[in-house]
């Protein structure tokens, strides 16, 4: 487990606050990056998956469980165990995504409501299956030390960055390119913009959305595995705090663009780090209110960027339309 942020700030005095926020932004943003990229893919195909919160928790549980069990049974596999956990997290997420897509493909079934259902189901199932996993420790994901040049232990701790973050950062432009320039990207966008056009071209709307939802939930599951396999690095029932849902709001803020998602995720991660950073330098009055900062910020951003009278720029045209 990496050194906790408070150490960083106590050693550097008030200069520690911006450092802690930057470090926290990088650390906290990883789940946001993966969930929001996945949700972008799903929403570009014209369907909203509010169940990402449940997918995230399920991914966290599956990732932790597989990492623990693999390392427990085959001690020589300790190095690959966390990565198998990441894979398992993705697959568990994808399974929930398939369930979401299948239910939504029935006529007259509302995708927002199914999302709430997946949220409750995924959380409940993860808590149930994860009960025996609360005590043990699982092998964690490795990190890269970018702070080798510094003599300050706190700077080094802040710059110890997980591999998944870099994968997420690379994934964002890759997905933007994929959506814009490949045949498959075009099909996903067509389904998202006009189901009639997609049908007339001979593509099955439900099948494309099934793929987009499953792939999106796969990414959200990976985002969940970061929570249990790196930061905070254990499995318990208080692990998630609305990250999955905030990521859905973040996609709206990012105007359905994968690259914008990356920046928005960093912003949200920073907001999440604000409370702990201030607390670490002794500003503990009203720390609960600082904890609410990311939620309040999400809400304010949505108020500022949404509009009642026009559809948002970049919004897939089929999003929120009643399914046939």
């Amino acid at each position, binding site marked *: 487990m990496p050194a906790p942020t408070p150490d960083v700030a106590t050693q550097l005095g008030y200069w520690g606050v911006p450092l802690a926020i930057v470090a926290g932004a990088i650390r906290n943003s990883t789940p946001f990056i993966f969930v929001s990229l996945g949700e972008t893919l799903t929403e570009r195909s014209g369907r909203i998956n*509010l169940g990402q919160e449940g997918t995230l928790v399920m991914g966290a549980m599956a990732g932790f469980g597989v990492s623990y069990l693999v390392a427990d049974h085959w001690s020589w596999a300790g190095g690959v165990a966390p990565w198998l956990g990441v894979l398992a997290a993705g697959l568990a997420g994808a399974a929930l995504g398939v*369930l979401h897509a299948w*239910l939504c493909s*029935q*006529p*007259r*079934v*509302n995708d*927002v*409501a*199914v999302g*709430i*259902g*997946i949220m*409750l*189901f*995924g*959380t*409940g*199932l993860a*808590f*149930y299956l994860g*009960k025996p996993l609360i005590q043990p420790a699982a092998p964690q994901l490795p990190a890269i030390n970018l702070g080798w040049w510094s003599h300050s232990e706190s700077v080094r701790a802040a710059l110890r960055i997980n591999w998944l973050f870099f994968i997420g950062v690379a994934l964002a432009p890759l997905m933007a390119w994929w959506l814009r320039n490949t045949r498959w990207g075009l099909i996903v966008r067509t389904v998202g913009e006009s189901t009639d056009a997609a049908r007339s071209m001979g593509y099955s709307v439900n099948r494309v959305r099934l793929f987009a939802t499953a792939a999106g939930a796969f990414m959200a599951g990976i985002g969940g595995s970061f929570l249990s396999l790196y930061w905070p690095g254990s499995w318990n029932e208080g692990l998630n*705090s*609305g990250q999955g*849902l*905030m990521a*859905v*709001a973040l996609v*709206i803020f990012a105007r359905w663009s994968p690259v914008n998602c990356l920046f928005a995720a960093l912003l949200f991660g920073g907001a999440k780090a604000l409370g702990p950073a201030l607390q670490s330098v002794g500003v503990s*009055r*009203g720390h*609960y*209110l600082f*904890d*609410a900062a990311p*939620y*309040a910020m*999400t*809400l304010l951003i*949505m*108020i500022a960027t*949404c*509009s*009642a*009278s026009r559809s948002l720029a970049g919004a897939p045209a089929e999003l929120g339309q009643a399914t*046939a």
Partner: protein
Amino acid sequence: MTETFNSQRPTIVFRTKRLIPASFIDAMIISVVAVVISLALFGLFVMFSGVEPVGMYGVMLRGAFGTPYAWRNTLIHAAPLLLTALCVALPARVGMIIIGGEGCVLIGGLLAALTAHLLPHAPPIVVQIGMIVVGMCGGGIWIAAAGALRQFRGVNETISSLLMNYIALALLNHCVEGPMHDPTSLDHPSSWPIGVANMMGNIPGTEIHVGLLFGIIMCVLCWVLMDHTNVGMAMRVVGGNVRAARVAGISVAKYSLLACFLGGAAAALTGVVEVAAVHGHANDSLAAGYGYAGILVAFVARQNPLAVIPVAILLGGVNGSGDLLQMKLKLSSASVQVFQGILFLVILGLDTWAGRLNEIRQTWFARLLGRVVYRNRKSSLVPGAVHAGANA
């Protein structure tokens, strides 16, 4: 000639209004089928965990409705769900999916504690009414705010109301550990106590707190409002077709916000009751997930305030039997959550039947009788059954 002319005109049948409309019966059929399917799936699920399902059903039934004690437990569990379900069901009638009930419960409880503190010398009945009125207004405004953001800024009400749950929890924690902290509550930070004299207590002659009574009254009132008044009619038009509502001169914003306000007020009443009849002060034990369970109740009741009553009692029974499942069968406490999740997904999957039950019945009967039925999955049109269905 007039005879022929008349026979060619489409016949319009005016039906007398039934007390229990056919849509209600359809809703109940779907709900019952959903519960049965979910119980079967849950049985399969526990079978994989090595628990024998038939015995599990027995334990569930005994834990929920088997003894007078179980019934009392069930009804106590059902009381908050009656009210938090309304927070979903009423906005759903105007076409909004609000899941902010949890936050409303917290706001209601917090305001109740505050009201009791601000009226130190008033007679108990005044304090109690004050707590109810202030709490309900606060919760109503809380959800109406989410509705207003949707109406005037186009903000997705599902996401905003869920975010507001987290904000409400932060606000509650801040207040009970900061400005409203009771210094004597050391191990579990709480607000000032409301005072023993101001407690609402139980329904006379029972050991069940007044929340159940409030819940049933609110459900019946909301049902009357929704199904038997002009206001409810206007709300249903708004929920059915916003453009049609505008053409008919109905103020969409007004009725949307009213539905949100009433829903929020109902959920906040849960918080008031929890503070004024159960805990005696506000703290984070208010956040017991009533708001989230209420979402499930509302969907299983298919957003009908009257159907909320039996569904809440059923779900209250399932929640109440959780302890016995844990004790007798060593099933983890999360198993109830798994059942709730399964039930939620099944009821949503069966949404595809809503309003088509007649049509589906016709198709199935026709198939049973060996007739050819042309069924087009995409348009959900069933040419073979349309005529028969239209007359029924």
